[in-house]
């Protein structure tokens, strides 16, 4: 039997969380060391998966499948493909950075235990190929995040944590109904027995259009809250702002991706007909999200809230690409999942550093930081340009692919969405000017420069930002086969035909 590497990705942090909670509180350095070791181990393993991943195989790889609850067709079914691969890697890489780089200031033991449990839940969600199993992990994730926000957050943390939990739970309730109905109805619609298995459902089962649409909408609403899509987004600014820095990074970096990933995996893949039917709605909401999120971000007075609203706009691009259903747009959406995670994660990291130094996130109380701390400002600038989508950095590639692909099937939506790049420059540059430019006042003059340890945490982010922007090919090579397979699956089930473009004349014939 093959080494169950994916299961290890889930269990290592879960066991780590258990181990930490039984360790004695008297030796905090051991606790920290254990957390670091486990998260680095998991991260290393995820990178091993990346290197062993075959670009020739468009299906699920490293699959492990064991029956769990036979009568209900529930199994422990894990697997990874080009759509989930980089989310797994991002989860693996982000957690050690958060654990190493961010000091929660109190109660390290519980903090680290929750964080590791969160990692286990995230890994499980991205790897599950069984609806039931997925739902279990999807819900597990909420618990540690609730406690992280409520326990280590800022002033309004209880309100934010409760809102986050309840709001997501309402979405999940619909989703649960959808999932169970899907599994049960599968029996009479092609599978022959009740099954929660994603691959089996997608391959064998075809629902009548009306049934499929009901099921799709029930499941999609849970994901739409998670993304979050307009108008279900208002939990996000509160949760982001009140969460501790580590929580915000994880929230923006990987947790929101549960929504966009879910829409792709359990929406488009599982219910192609319904997803295709619902395109106009999702495209419209996505475009509204892009413009609306950007405008709302412009008017924020709290730096962290501003970044949170920028997420609403950025995730709109991902939803746009997902529902435009072309190779370029979905590849771009999958890629943008990662890009947004890296850029926005880094932005939250930097805003966290500002808070550590100044104990405020109010834009009005910050000024002239570039003069006081030029290296810190330079780091912020690079991350910000990535978020704005300047070519040569990662954000541009994803955005460009989403838009160029969406233009083929959703022209006018794309034309409006592209205007979002103007607004992105507006809210970020305006914020940058107010916070970093100018002559620093009394309180900001002594703003400490980026420390070595902080730089060590920030550098991997910047490394990914630059590398992906300059040479995205390795990443795209791994994403594309799975995306193509997905689109072929949609075409199979619905008769949808991806638009083609003419074969271009290359310029090579004139080259000597």
């Amino acid at each position: 039997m093959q080494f169950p590497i994916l299961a290890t990705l889930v269990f290592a942090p879960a066991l780590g969380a258990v181990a930490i909670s039984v360790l004695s509180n008297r030796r905090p350095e051991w606790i920290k060391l254990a957390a670091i070791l486990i998260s680095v181990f998991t991260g290393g393993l995820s990178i091993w998966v990346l290197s062993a991943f075959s670009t020739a195989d468009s299906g699920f790889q490293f699959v492990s499948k064991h029956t769990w609850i036979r009568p209900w067709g529930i199994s422990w079914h894990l697997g990874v493909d080009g759509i989930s691969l980089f989310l797994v890697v991002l989860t693996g890489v982000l957690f050690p950075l958060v654990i190493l780089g961010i000091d929660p200031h109190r109660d390290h033991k519980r903090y680290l235990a929750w964080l590791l449990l969160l990692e286990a839940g995230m890994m499980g969600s991205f790897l599950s190929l069984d609806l039931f199993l997925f739902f279990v992990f999807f819900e597990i994730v909420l618990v540690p995040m609730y406690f992280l926000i409520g326990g280590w957050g800022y002033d309004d943390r209880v309100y934010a944590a409760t809102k986050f939990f309840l709001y997501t739970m309402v979405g999940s309730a619909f989703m649960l109904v959808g999932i169970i109905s899907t599994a049960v109805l599968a029996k009479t619609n092609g599978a022959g027995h009740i099954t929660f298995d994603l691959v089996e459902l997608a391959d064998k089962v075809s629902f009548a259009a009306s049934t499929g649409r009901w099921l799709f909408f029930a499941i999609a609403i849970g994901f739409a809250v998670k993304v979050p899509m307009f108008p279900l987004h208002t939990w996000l600014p509160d949760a982001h702002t009140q969460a501790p820095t580590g929580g915000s990074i994880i929230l923006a970096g990987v947790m929101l991706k549960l929504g966009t990933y879910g829409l792709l995996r359990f929406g488009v893949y599982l219910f192609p007909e319904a997803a295709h039917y619902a395109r106009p709605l999702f495209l419209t909401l996505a475009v509204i999200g892009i413009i609306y999120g950007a405008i709302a971000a412009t008017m924020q007075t709290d730096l962290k809230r501003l970044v949170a609203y920028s997420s609403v706009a950025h995730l709109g691009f991902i939803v746009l690409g997902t529902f435009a259903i072309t190779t370029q747009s979905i590849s771009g959406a999958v890629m943008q999942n990662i890009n947004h995670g890296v850029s926005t994660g880094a932005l939250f990291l930097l805003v966290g550093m500002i808070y550590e130094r100044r104990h405020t996130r109010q834009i009005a109380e910050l000024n002239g930081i570039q003069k006081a701390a030029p290296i810190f400002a330079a780091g912020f600038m690079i991350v910000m340009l990535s978020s704005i989508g300047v070519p040569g950095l990662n954000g541009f590639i994803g955005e460009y692919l989403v838009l160029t692909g969406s233009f083929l099937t959703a022209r006018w939506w794309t034309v409006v969405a592209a205007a979002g790049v103007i607004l992105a420059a507006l809210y970020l540059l305006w914020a940058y000017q107010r916070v970093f430019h100018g002559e620093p006042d009394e309180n900001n003059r002594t703003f400490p420069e980026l420390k070595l340890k902080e730089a060590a945490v920030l550098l991997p982010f910047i490394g990914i930002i630059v590398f992906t922007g300059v040479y995205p090919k390795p990443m795209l090579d791994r994403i594309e086969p799975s995306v193509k397979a997905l689109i072929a699956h949609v075409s199979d089930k619905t008769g949808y035909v991806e638009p083609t473009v003419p074969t271009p004349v290359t310029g090579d014939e004139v080259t000597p």
Partner: protein
Amino acid sequence: MLDVVWLIPALPLIGFLTIMVFGRRLGEPRAGYFATAMVGAAFFVTVGVFIDLMSKSAEQREHVKRIFTWVPVGSLHIDLAFLADPLSITMCLFVTGIGSLIHLYAVGYMHGDPRFSKFFLYLNLFAFSMLMLVLGENLLVTFLGWEGVGTCSYFLISFWHERESAATAGKKAFITNRVGDWGVMIAMFLAFQAVGTVSYHGINTAAASGALSTSTATAIAVMLFIGACGKSAQLPLYLWLPDAMEGPTPVSALIHAATMVTAGVFLMTRINPVLHAAATWVPTMIAIVGCATALFAATIAVAQNDIKKVLAYSTVSQLGYMFLAVGSGAYVAAIFHMVTHAFFKALLFLGSGSVIHGMHHEQDMRKMGALRKLMPITAFTFIIGWLAIAGVPPFAGFWSKDEILLFAFAKSPVLYVVGLVTALLTAYYMTRQVIMVFYGKARWHDHSAEHGAHGDFTPHESPKTMLLPLVVLAGLSVVGGALQLPFSRDTKFLEKWLEPVVAIGERNITGSWADDNKYILLAVAVVVALAGIAGSILVYGKQKAKAIEPTILAEGWYYDQGVSKFMGGPGRRGFVGLAWFDKHIIDGAVDGVGKLVRGSAGQIRKTQSGFVRQYASAIGVGVVLLLVWFVVIRGIL
């Protein structure tokens, strides 16, 4: 030599990376000389490539160098590739040539600045981006450079960001440019959909062969023109350029006069077959926008008192000429004017920088005067630049401007007349500037107190590093016209050189009235230029007439204020309104649902009092109601 075309942008990139790591250790002035050397080296590589290209026959002067596959997804395949052809190498020659001169100048100009090495860091990054822009084999590589120069422009305009006006100007430049970038992005999407590629070769071949429908060609052309309007500061997006003068003067010379702002003209020339395939109203619109911008900006320049603002509006105006040329199908003339303009406008900006340097950062021309004796070399070179821009033969600007006017006449006499009026105004306001700065009474005495720290204030000539570029550029401004002299086909070197690139789009005006009578038009242009100069001398030199400088012109027809007012007023209110809507309506609904649930739950909870008698009575009432229901409604019994 052609295969090392990648070295041209790579050298400034190496400079950028080196200064990023070792900048502080290199310090002043070594970081500056290092950056200069990198751009200088790129110039020599360009010359090598140029010679190599020259040695080939005209049809073979196109070489694609693929570095790696950049964005490959499905049918979209974009290489990071360079295209070396007459157009891109012409651009590279003057970008690296003038660029290295301005780098050298900046070593002197930025002397003593605490962020000396950072300035050159940005400057080298700019040179890299600009070279990517012009060398790109496809729209996406060009767009990489396009956004790159925009970003560097932002960095450099807000270089002295402690000044709020500088920080605001940088931001404004970036955002206004982004409006144009939106157009470029849409054009790329359209091209991919219609042609399956964003490479220039693919797009232009499709346009030339008729594979590109007129409507698509029109859409692509219009969208790219929107981008060009942003980058090249045309109406209605020119707003950012005058403000960009907040940047250090070498930046104004390099980015906001010689190179970056011409990118739009370059792009239009690059896709000239698409413009040719587009509906006929597209070139006409471009010509009208160019012409209108030229006149509009020239009228504003007449009333400016800031030495750099005059030059800024003049740049907008001259760029308008270039678009007039593009719209008239005179691509060679557009590039010709771009090159000569780069010479004399860089010269004028650097000259103004030398004046500002010598005047201890005074930019108001009303506080200058009689500087020619104290700054002889600056004054001498500035005067050459003035003659070149005013259109006095045989200086460079005369020839290029005349060629544009020739094509404009062939397109429409109205365009020609407007162009001529602009030429008159150009000669007028430039003469005004020269008189106010270098002649007349020395007015800086009265203001010496303002320059307090220096004690006795006397303007001084600038150091050699600053003067050398001035002298070289002055030389080029004198002889630059030789690139393209209108006398016969043999004297039109630039036309022959660019022919393979513009063959499809270039308009043939042979046999038109304008071409047959070109010497008459030439004479008219000379008379107009001299009239402008004479008029200005009468007003500002001899003071025979009162200066006409109404506030409306000084304020730029209130266009900028109007836009700012709209943005700050209704625009901002709209944004605030949306934020309010989000907080109170959307989130209010969420909190409202929460409150409703809690409120109603609170009411219902009251029934759970724990008193058995209450529960018993409720049960009793329930039993009675049930009985009533059975008996009365269901009719049981």
